[in-house]
């Protein structure tokens, strides 16, 4: 036994990397599906590829937009934007970065074969024109204030290497030539992604010589890997472990509120909602159409309990669609206070003194602690007389049924879902979640409750055409207030993201949930 132990120790010593190698090993919760930056519009992919490729406009950790490959941008008219490109940027093979690469990217992004979720939205309706090698103009048919936000979603690829390249060519590394601080060395699907420092990086020498990304999907296994020293840095620390890890002297945690909200969508378009019944099981008219009932349910949720007991403190009770540190939110809104008596009274006023029966549907494993949140809320509703059963479904089944399950219409009556505003401003939540569902206009795309308010629609449209930031923020704040007044949705909480790193590393949390080696510095 002692011999075995000694052997193991010797083995461990022999394998320990030499101290001077500046390698950062990162444990990922979600694995990217490709190394092609335009294949799959998904957070793990975009995060990973931010090391290799760059965008015209970058997002700072606090969600502010900052110059990336574009040095500056301005509007020439309401519909035409001019961007100045950085001059001293080189691709990893040494060739210079020019406007042609941007134009090529705009053409490639919406046309990647077999893409399950393309970047078409980022370039849709935009006409791009090369003025000279380092100036471009982008025009849109109507005023489009979110131009920089759109550009902050699109990674620029090299024309020289990308022309005719397929997703496989990026995966093999052949076409994965970027301008970013790290070069792709090796991508072994399911196992690892290796990167090396780009010494010629325009933004100064990157901190780490080598990067190693390992997907470790299971939460405890990821934490174990960090505790055991197999990785230096992990994303998505499970809420269950945070309390203990905070006391761990070997580790340091860093947290930041996400641009995501966990909320409830309610059926507001059917007179007879399929999953709502009277207390005695008889059919009743859809009570969720009554604002008082919706408000009662909102008052029935103990948000503090959800945050402290279910989310173990790593969340913030929600008052609206996005935490008020983000653009276009309302400072006036406060989380609806827990008031079971008031809720019962409201229900009685609305004609439901005994409450009713309802099924809450939610995904299983899509959001942090989703099933537990559903269970807790069902407990709370049951206490105010709304007897609530829960059904949690695998995400693959849940989302298609929740969107088109009932003959092209949302199937459920009351669902738990989450929403992340990719653009980082409330318009990115208001338009798809509470805007009227309209296929042609592209509004209300994720409005699974079909709430509809023409006045609110108008406000959102107005904000969308307002280029002046201050004015737009004010309009969006008003729209948020209106949506909350109507209880168009019931917000629950904003999750807080947690990263864990070994002692000696400092991690800057990011609102966009990207896990980047650039966020990690040595203390």
């Amino acid at each position: 036994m002692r011999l075995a132990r000694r052997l193991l120790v010797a083995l461990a010593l022999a394998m320990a990397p030499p101290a001077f190698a500046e390698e950062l090993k990162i444990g990922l919760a979600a694995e990217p599906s490709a190394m092609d930056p335009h294949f799959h519009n998904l957070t793990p992919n975009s995060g990973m590829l931010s090391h290799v490729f760059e965008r015209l406009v970058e997002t700072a950790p606090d969600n502010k937009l900052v110059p990336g490959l574009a040095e500056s941008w301005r509007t020439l008219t309401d519909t035409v934007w001019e961007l100045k490109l950085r001059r001293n940027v080189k691709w990893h093979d040494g060739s210079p970065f020019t406007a042609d690469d941007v134009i090529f990217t705009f053409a490639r992004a919406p046309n990647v074969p077999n893409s399950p979720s393309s970047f078409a939205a980022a370039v849709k309706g935009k006409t791009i024109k090369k003025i000279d090698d380092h100036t471009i103009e982008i025009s849109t048919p109507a005023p489009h204030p979110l131009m920089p936000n759109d550009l902050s979603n699109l990674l620029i690829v090299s024309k020289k290497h990308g022309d005719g390249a397929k997703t496989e060519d990026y995966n093999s590394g052949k076409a994965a030539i970027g301008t970013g601080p790290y070069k792709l060395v090796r991508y072994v699907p399911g196992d690892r992604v290796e990167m090396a420092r780009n010494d010629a990086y325009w933004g100064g020498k990157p901190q780490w010589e080598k990067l190693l990304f390992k997907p470790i999907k299971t939460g405890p296994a990821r934490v174990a890997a960090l505790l055991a020293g197999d990785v230096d840095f992990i994303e998505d620390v499970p809420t269950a472990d945070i309390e203990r890890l905070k006391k761990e002297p070997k580790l340091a945690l860093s947290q930041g509120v996400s641009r995501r909200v966990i909320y409830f969508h309610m059926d507001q378009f059917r007179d007879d909602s399929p999953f709502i019944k009277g207390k005695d099981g008889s059919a009743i008219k859809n009570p969720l159409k009554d604002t008082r009932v919706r408000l009662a349910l909102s008052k029935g949720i103990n948000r503090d309990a959800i945050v402290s007991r279910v989310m173990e403190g790593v969340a913030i009770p929600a008052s609206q669609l996005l935490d008020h540190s983000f653009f276009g939110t309302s400072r006036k809104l406060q989380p609806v206070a827990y008031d079971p008596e008031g809720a019962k009274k409201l229900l009685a006023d609305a004609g439901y003194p005994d409450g009713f029966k309802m099924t809450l549907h939610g995904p299983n494993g899509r959001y942090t602690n989703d099933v537990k949140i559903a269970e807790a809320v069902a407990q709370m509703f049951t206490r105010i007389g709304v007897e609530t059963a829960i059904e949690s479904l695998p995400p693959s089944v849940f989302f298609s049924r929740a969107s088109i399950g009932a003959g092209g219409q949302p199937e459920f009556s009351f669902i738990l879902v989450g929403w992340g505003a990719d653009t980082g401003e409330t318009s990115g939540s208001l338009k798809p979640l509470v805007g009227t569902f309209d296929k042609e206009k592209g509004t209300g795309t994720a409005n699974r409750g079909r709430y509809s308010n023409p006045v609110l629609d108008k406000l959102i449209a107005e904000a969308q055409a307002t280029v002046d930031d201050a004015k737009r923020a004010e309009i969006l704040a008003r729209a948020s207030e209106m949506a909350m007044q109507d209880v168009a949705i019931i917000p629950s909480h904003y999750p807080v993201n947690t990263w864990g790193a070994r002692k000696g590393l400092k991690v800057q949390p990011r609102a966009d949930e990207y896990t980047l080696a650039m966020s990690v510095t040595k203390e």
Partner: protein
Amino acid sequence: MSLATSPAPAAIDGKAVPIETPLARFVSDFCESRVAVAALAVLVLIVALAVLAPWITPQNPYDLAQVDVLDSRLAPGEKSFKGPTHWLGTDGAGRDLFSAILYGLRISLSVGVMSGLIAMALGTSVGLIAAYAGGRLDTLIMRLVDLQLSFPAILIALMLIAMLGKGVDKIIVALVAVQWAYYARTVRGTALVEQRKEYVEAAVCLGLSNSRIVFRHILPNCMPPLIVLATVQAAYAIALEATLSFLGVGLPQTEPSLGLLISNGFEYMLSGKYWISFFPGIALLVTIVAINLVGDQLRDVLNPRLRR
């Protein structure tokens, strides 16, 4: 293991001690192993606890009105804010773990037993038909059985779940699908042997109907190996259900079986809240070990080659 040393064949032995009925002999044989008796006692206790769960648990863990999220993650022995003490602690949703384990046992056992019974009925019928019909039908059925048995059960179950989706009924279907072939093969083998015996010939001479011969005469004689198989399969089915639930493709999370309780507790393994996963794990382990120990002894006792 002194069984093999007895030289006398079974029939003579049986006549020599006329007071002993087969059942009595079976019981006394079984009781030779103290471990097996203890295991049986534990098993009976577990089943009793599971069956009586609604009357002996302090809480119905599936009734949301009785569970409070404010009680979540209490350590063993801690008091809830309403008063009652949770002797095994509570899980992440505030369920009393003792109650949740007993209710989970109910689900695990019923899934195991239900799927076992259906698989046994199905497999036995198919096996008997194969043995009695013979010829092409027999070849076809046994080919199917061989094929199925050459694939690992977990894969077949995974594929079925991928097609059927989640749910208690679906898990049972998947478990039946992976088990029936074992019964079919065992029954066919035994039935083929039994068929050639005199009592069947006698029955045929008497002009009894085929179904009567098969079900009233051959089937009872196939029972011993079936019983052994059933215990082993029950343990296997329970473990398989737990594994599928752990992989996230088994039962729905709101009414957790033992496997799901362990799986839910898995996320607390490193947080120091060991009890959420540990106690259900122990319950599952004890259950399966007890069934296996009983099954082992049954195999020894019912094996005709070892019979005195």
